[in-house]
């Protein structure tokens, strides 16, 4: 029988795959996709919790997360576009203005 833990483990693994992408990939767009993966991991955990605790509030939360993620992606992508116009690159290694 599939238990709550199993969903949580899938969620954790999904989160870590997203983290791995954020840490290793150099393309900003892929980086964003990895972020989406991490958000989805959270979604999965919430839906599972909602199901196993017999409570719909978790699904509402997921609903909100999806909305926020959509907003975030739209702004983030707009930023990438603006950045690309200026620097002609989407590679994070080329973005090191934080260093003096």
């Amino acid at each position, binding site marked *: 029988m599939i238990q709550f833990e199993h969903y949580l483990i899938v969620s*954790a693994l999904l989160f870590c795959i997203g983290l791995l992408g954020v840490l290793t990939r150099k393309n900003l767009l892929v980086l964003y996709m990895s972020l989406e993966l991490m958000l*989805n991991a959270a979604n999965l955990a919430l*839906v599972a919790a909602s199901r196993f*605790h017999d409570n719909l509030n978790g699904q509402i939360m997921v609903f909100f997360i999806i909305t*926020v993620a959509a907003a975030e992606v739209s702004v983030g992508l707009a930023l990438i576009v603006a950045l690309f116009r200026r620097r002609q690159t989407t590679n994070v290694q080329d973005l090191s203005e934080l260093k003096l």
Partner: protein
Amino acid sequence: MIETLFFITFALLTLICALLVVANPFSRNPVTSAMFLVLTIISMAGLFVLLNAFFLAAVQVVVYAGAVIVLFLFVIMLLDIEEEERRKLKQFSVYSGILVAGVVAVIAITAILSSGIGAYASASPVIQGNPAPLGKILFRDYLLPFEILSILLLVAMVGAILLSKKDLK
């Protein structure tokens, strides 16, 4: 029994596709990543269905696969990014990334398994993630967050338009 089978299938599909999003050995093309992201999202929608979250499964497919990924593809095409040139990845960065992600995964899974969190789960769950009960809660208990969320979307839209304008004046 059949439920277990479905779970394993969708879970494996989700994880493999997600892995291919971030680390595709054959292609570094962002479009490929985007496509695998679509597959991931759809597999997750399958998991949602298994969890009785029918409405969310639909939203997941519509919003993510339909809107977000399309947005990604638009941007990729807009920017005319040729395949990521095969820059030599820094070994150190890759290994350290794998190490950190792995450590976090091990810690999280160990914590989940040792916490006995499943014991708190309801023995016979009955909820159905249909639009009607969800809508009732959403528009009754969560009305204010919902409205704030709509403002957030408006702001994000304005921001996105402002940022992608050619010259800000």
